[in-house]
């Protein structure tokens, strides 16, 4: 590939991620950041021939921090939404997402109408929550700070059904028994991108190019397979 590193890309490139969203980004017991997002970030940096500097940053401050130039990019499974695009730009997407409902085994839900009168849970500040708020009329919606909290309330029975990004839910279902995906796949054309400050076109171009490059040379596939048995791009 190119000999020189990409133009307009800071070196080292400072990247923020949340660090509490397994299996995409989390911290392992050695204190290292790991997960799909993290591996992708490293792969992208390698492709751009710059050094990576990853920081774990609380979700609430992650966009303000980007705008205030505390780091240059956010790779944290952030959906590209119109609202976010008002304050930041996105490169990518680097994967795409759809939603599924999760419920105790045997819950009879085959269509949206079956959700009436049930309590639905979702993680706040996710597209799942947005979808639930916009589309659920007959039921109540509860919003949780973390995915784990939502799982926990599903187990205690305070909520009946979860609506969740498919991959983390898939990951969770591997670890428990008694719960399953129910109802249809909810496709909302959710694309996950890399947030950068507005107007940094050079960086955006470089990132886009790098994503394309790792898609082509098989690096992406390697990372993908490490976490999921299916292609999530």
């Amino acid at each position, binding site marked *: 590939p190119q000999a020189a590193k990409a133009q307009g890309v800071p070196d080292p490139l400072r990247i*923020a991620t949340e660090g509490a969203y397994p299996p995409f980004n989390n*911290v392992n017991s050695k204190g290292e950041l790991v997960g799909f997002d993290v591996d992708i970030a490293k792969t992208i940096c390698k492709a751009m021939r710059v050094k990576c500097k990853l920081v774990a940053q609380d979700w609430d401050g992650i966009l303000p*921090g980007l705008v205030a130039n*505390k780091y240059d990019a956010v790779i944290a499974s952030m959906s590209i939404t119109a609202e976010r695009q008002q304050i930041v730009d996105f490169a990518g997407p680097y994967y795409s997402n759809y939603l599924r409902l999760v419920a105790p085994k045997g819950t009879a839900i085959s269509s949206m109408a079956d959700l009436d009168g049930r309590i639905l849970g979702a993680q706040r500040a996710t597209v799942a929550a947005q979808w639930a708020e916009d589309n659920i009329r007959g039921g109540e919606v509860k919003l949780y700070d973390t*995915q784990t909290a939502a799982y926990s309330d599903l187990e205690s029975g305070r909520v009946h059904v979860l609506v969740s990004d498919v991959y983390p839910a898939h990951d969770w279902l591997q670890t428990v028994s008694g719960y399953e995906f129910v109802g249809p796949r909810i496709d909302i054309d959710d694309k996950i991108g890399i947030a950068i400050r507005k107007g940094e076109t050079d960086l955006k171009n470089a990132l886009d190019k790098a994503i394309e490059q790792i898609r082509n040379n098989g690096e992406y596939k390697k990372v993908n397979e490490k976490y999921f048995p299916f292609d999530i791009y």
Partner: protein
Amino acid sequence: MEGLSLLALGADGWGDELLRGAWLTLQLALVTLFFGILLGLLLAAARLSSWKIIRWPCMGWLLVVRGTPEFLVLLLIYFGLDRYLSQILRFLGIAEQFELPRFAGAVVGLAVIFSAYAAEIFRGAWRAVPKGQMEAAVAVGMSPLAGFWRVRMPQMWRFAIPGLGNLWMVLLKDTSLAAVIALNELLRMAKIAGETTRDPLFFFAVAALIYLFMTACSDLVRLWLERRARRGVRAVAG
């Protein structure tokens, strides 16, 4: 058993991460306490000033700081201070870009919050010192400042320490706000560990124990200080 192995020190467990978080929490809290008390005394003095031109802005400031959610104060100070300092430095031609260290940013933010509450406590303590005590001080020719240091201040502590003790406890836990500016203190470390292992409650419980340990130690110090501050005062208890 499984729980304990989760807490192992080193690569396999979370013990060292949590301890590092706790250490950061302690550092943040201690440094903030120092500056917070100084700032709090100043604010209390301004608040009690007989000049409206000093008193009113001070009251406004206290109201705004106490009225705004803490994490917002911290965000504003960390991100705002940074920008304005940069502008000033650029204007002076000293440096192109200024980056406030995260630790310093957190301390400034927490100290601003702490001092706003401490000011109120000092004000109450100020008033609680019997009037005759200060009169005796100025009557021997002490300036109000000298009287303040030598008479009012030592007597203020006994009224202030219970309230400050509460504030210290609040502060120790408010350090978790620093997570907003990417400092991995104890509570955030516990959160991260909890999310990663999908067992947040266990790590919260462990964090709670660590907090309890820290507060237990500091409470002993507080009780000692309180007893000391009450020396010479006939006890009402009993």
